[in-house]
């Protein structure tokens, strides 16, 4: 049993068996994440300046942004769930082949 546990642990060993520190994660990913955050801010500004009506995609985008707030965990999973079709029954017929990235009936 102990051997099995050791094997399982070995399969996900990193940093000599320890998780990276917050400092190491920041060193590796902070600038990249900062860059992406500014891109999101600029995208929202751009969409706001544009003329015409927005559609459900922007609504679902704002709903997803709310999942980043505070000390909530599993942010990536919750953002993906916000963009997802929550229904469970197959549709009658596929009208096309593509996906747009947001659920059209986001509340």
């Amino acid at each position: 049993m102990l051997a099995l546990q050791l094997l399982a642990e070995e399969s996900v060993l990193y940093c000599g068996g320890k998780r990276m520190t917050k400092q190491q994660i920041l060193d590796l990913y902070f600038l990249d994440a900062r860059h992406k955050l500014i891109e999101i801010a600029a995208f929202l500004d751009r969409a706001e300046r544009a003329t015409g009506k927005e559609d459900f995609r922007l609504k679902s985008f704002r709903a997803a942004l709310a999942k980043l707030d505070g000390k909530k965990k599993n942010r990536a999973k919750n953002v993906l769930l916000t963009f997802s079709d929550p229904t469970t029954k197959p549709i009658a017929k596929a009208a096309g082949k593509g996906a747009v990235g947001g659920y059209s009936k986001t509340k």
Partner: protein
Amino acid sequence: MRYIEPHAHMVSRTTDDYERMALAGCAAVCEPAFWASFDRSSPAGFFDYFSQLTEHEPKRAAKFGLKHFCWLCINSKEAEDVKLAEEVIALIPQFIGRKNVLGIGEIGLNKNSRNELRVLEMQVEVAAKYNQLILVHTPHLEDKLKGTRLILDVLKNDQRISPERVIIDHVEEHTVEMVLDCGMWAGMTLYPETKCTPARAIDILETYGSERIWMNSACDWGVSDPLAVPKTALEMKKRGHLAKAIENIIFSNPKKFLRQSLNFKL
């Protein structure tokens, strides 16, 4: 480093890509049947495609010392035409005996329609009848959650299907857990814009462990990178993962799943 590319659509890639993959340490490439970015007009188009996958593409790969394997099916994007699908599925048994065929795939759903579901069930039937491995494509973006649930229901309800002989591909943070909980394998696809980035794929490994998970580039005719797997291995190294753990994910895991097919020999 050596690795296996378990999901790549090489018919859409250049010979230079084969060379780059071989230089990066690729030992074998596995090619599921998929949508060509346009609908084929007849079963004859699929006959030619299956011939390409089983006869011609292995020769192209062999020029660079790469083993080439494939999966056969009609993909979900062409499944709305059930009559066409029936005729294409009827072609598959004559190709199953070919020496580089690993199983049925990538079957699955695209827009989660009734006809797609019906065609999925028909192809699961072929896999069960001929005792083939199954590789499943899960839908894109907003359709992935629902589609993954529907697919898992089909597979779990068929007592002939062993979960350890099924890989559910293109998992992300919101679908990986339900796949692993079913005892099936999970594939993470590394794409520049959709699906998983290398950093997120490694997050998933660190969160859910590395058992029954593989990574693939799923490189095709769209925005994709045939070197995504070795690049993610490099990212794992940057994050301090040990060489043994990296090889486990990019070589040993896909080998463990794929060798359940007697045709998979390295």
